[in-house]
């Protein structure tokens, strides 16, 4: 995890990654689509990772075969969402405003891993950079930036359209 900006929350270091990964798993399990994809949190050398197990239903091209680009989109967006939420002092549920994903290498039909870097955690928004890889971490297959909105506390439930 890294951060910039003076209003950012304290960032967990590797020593806290056990608790952090438990928190992440709990947040992921609240998301029906994340459960459907089978996303699971793992502890890696560099901190918390999200693992996407491969299955036939995730294939986008059966001739190669390759994962569907939207599956990588989901892995990146959901990892960003959990990273932003876990950094928030009130663990507010963020709303994804936009995401921009670059595809760097072919995504084979195998396990994929994602790692999040919180670029900036502010009071109202969070910007998260997510990198995905399969075999070698040094050869990312996709990377994306996700901008999230942290709702005002009182308005979190009622004012879902408030923008």
């Amino acid at each position, binding site marked *: 995890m890294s951060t910039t900006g003076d209003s950012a929350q304290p960032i967990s270091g590797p020593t806290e990654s056990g608790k952090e990964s438990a928190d992440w798993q709990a947040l992921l399990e609240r998301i029906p689509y994340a459960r459907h994809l089978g996303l699971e949190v793992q502890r890696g050398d560099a901190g918390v990772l999200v693992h996407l197990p491969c299955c036939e239903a*995730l294939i986008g091209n*059966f001739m190669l075969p390759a994962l569907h680009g*939207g599956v990588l989109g989901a892995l990146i*967006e959901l990892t960003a969402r959990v990273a932003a939420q876990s950094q928030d002092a009130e663990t507010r549920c963020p709303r994804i405003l936009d995401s921009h994903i670059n595809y760097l*290498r072919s995504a084979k039909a195998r396990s994929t891993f994602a790692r999040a870097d919180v670029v900036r955690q502010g009071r109202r928004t969070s910007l998260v950079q997510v990198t995905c890889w399969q075999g070698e971490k040094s050869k990312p297959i996709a990377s994306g930036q996700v901008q999230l909105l942290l709702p005002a506390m009182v308005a979190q439930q009622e004012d879902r359209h408030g923008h």
Partner: protein
Amino acid sequence: MTKPNRAQHSNAVTTAWQFTEQVPHGRELGMQVVSVDQGQVCMRLTPQSWMFAQEDTKEICTSVLYSLADSAGGLAVFAGALELMPIATLDLRMDYLRPASGDQALLAVATCRHLTDEVAFIHCDILSEGNRELLATANATFMRNTQGQQFQAGGRKKEGA
């Protein structure tokens, strides 16, 4: 879902249409190609409760809209180019304007804005079927004629450009 005009299309569009409907992830999400008309692709997705973003709301997870835009965008490359060749998504940018309600089907309308020998620029709108409210917009760049085995359609990933 009727497909009134598939037979009138060029072979390339017909093949890409069929390929798109056979993609395992598209089938899993229940994506259907509604029409391909003058370079404009329309696809439809009926939400299910496992696609939601939270237990307590019926909001569809943004990533489902993302997958729909990627698939519709890939087919729009062929609708614009009228030629079969392997393609690869270079990048895709989504803006989520409104939450997508789970009690309305999603429609994706994708067009090829510009085509060169190497690149296709795609725009896609995601709308709510009932009130036609704009839920999200996508802009994607696809690489054309990537190295691949035979033909890959529907926004599939191939080794870089």
